[in-house]
């Protein structure tokens, strides 16, 4: 989870990603940030994010991203 927060902070400064909710829905990060985010997450956690995971709810908070990563690692 800490690693996810670190990656998010490298994308956008000045946002408390520990508590932030709706980061995609509320346009805190946009589709261009998501492109960089995916690349960083795949490198950091050695997972492959498929299109079935490309939904707002999977990227809407640090916790949601962490849950998605855990699911991908379990597969």
């Amino acid at each position: 989870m800490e690693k996810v927060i670190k990656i998010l902070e490298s994308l956008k400064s000045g946002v408390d990603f520990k508590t932030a909710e709706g980061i995609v829905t509320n346009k805190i990060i946009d589709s261009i940030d998501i492109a960089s985010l995916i690349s960083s997450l795949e490198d950091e956690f050695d997972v492959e994010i498929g299109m079935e995971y490309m939904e707002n709810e999977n990227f809407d908070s640090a916790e949601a991203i962490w849950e998605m990563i855990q699911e991908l690692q379990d597969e």
Partner: protein
Amino acid sequence: MSITSAYFVFFLFLLFLLFYLCPVRHRWLVLLAGSVCFYLVAGAIRFLPFLVFTSGVVWICARQIGRCYEALDEKLKAEGLDRTAKKALREQYRKKARRLLCLALILCIGLLCVTKFTKYAVRYLNLAAAALCGRAPFHAEWVIVPLGISYYTFSVVGYLLDVYWKRYSYEPDFLRFFLYAIYFPHIVQGPISRYSLLGQELKKELRFDSRRIAFGMELMLWGFFKKLVIADRLNQFVSAVYNGQSQAGSIYIVAILFDAFQIYTDFSGYTDIVRGASQIFGVELEQNFNHPFFSKTVPEYWRRWHMSLGGWFKDYVYYPCTISHFMKRLNKWAKNTLSERGSRFTAVVFPVFVTWVLTGLWHGTGKTYLCWGIYYSTLITISAAFQPEFEALTKLLRIRTETFSWQLFRMLRTFCCFMGGRLLTRPGSLFNTRRVIWNIFHNLCPWCLTDGTIFQFGLDWPQLCLLAVSILVLWAVSMMQERFSVREALERQNIVFRWIIIFTAIFSILIFGIYGQGYDASAFMYEAF
């Protein structure tokens, strides 16, 4: 049958009666029959087989993909499978699903490309043939472009991809699916609705709700006002300027400004009319515009303008591009060889470029739309890649970013970027675009705005005053809509005031609207796509 014609109002009234006289559980069939009738009258009977083919192919393939996943789930439940065996099984069924997906995509996108690009390709083939052998042997008269093909193809392809990506299950009933494809309010010009939203809306119990019907009619009135009073009035001026001889630069500047408002009021007016019409039947269509001229950046602008198309390209082109194997390899290479900044730039530039060039080609097939796509991909890439520099520059210049003046400047800057994009496509060719720019810089002639020249393009002084008042009303209502629901606010008012507003709107449309022969307004600009 244009949706601004008296025929459409009559059609809507007839469908309304039939719809609410029918038992609730059969109402969707009335909508289906009404949509088929509308498509036949608005288009032609020869267009229908294309729609049946595209929706049929997608429905069959999506059903097979869905069944493929169901079979996989059954097999995975079987005991005694280790992780490797499960992975192999998943891959085996995934391949099968991928084959079905490719088949449907080739057939549907192929048909769309043939109808849209053949004329363009034939023109160039003939030019080449004429240069080589002195004659033009190819013909494109046989090509027909079925009404709404870009819109319904994108809608059903979105559904197919969602089923393939397991976002939801397939639709087992073809007629239900066909209604989603042909539903009359969105078939001609969108919004490009998602099956997860419109499909579900059409499945719910469509009951009579007087409040919702009133809201629908009010939204339609607002749409008619935008289209007939503002867009078609602006069209007279803009068309006269661009279709005529070379004009003074100042006239072109006014035409560029008017064109920006024209396309907005034309397309958003259309969307309001069809969303209102759909609300009358209890079906909510997606929002397609969210006051784009209040946007402060170009990416924000495209999140507010033609939202259903932007969302479609984001979900079905941009993201697949972003996570493609090619991009992953490119990103790895960039991370190993370039700086952090450089690798971030690499992750953005290719998907943005592909998405915008394809968005351009969706709008039109000529060089102008290709340039339009490159123009927007460049703007968006620059704004993403140089964001730290822009922020540093703002700090260096000690700009107070929270002030109204700064926000206004950003809105005007975005509006100018939009006008720049329109300048590439509206004059009709890149040659004409060059002519407009040349005249602005070399033949500005500012006094043409005061010596009466401006009145030679279809709009006299009272008409221009009426236009100014109408745009002021548009701006005031848009400002209110940014803050609250205007229709709900109107509902809370006394009945006398409410009806004064409604009658004012009706009579404004009837008196000030621009009508052609047979009370049929000019065609919608986005209908051509």
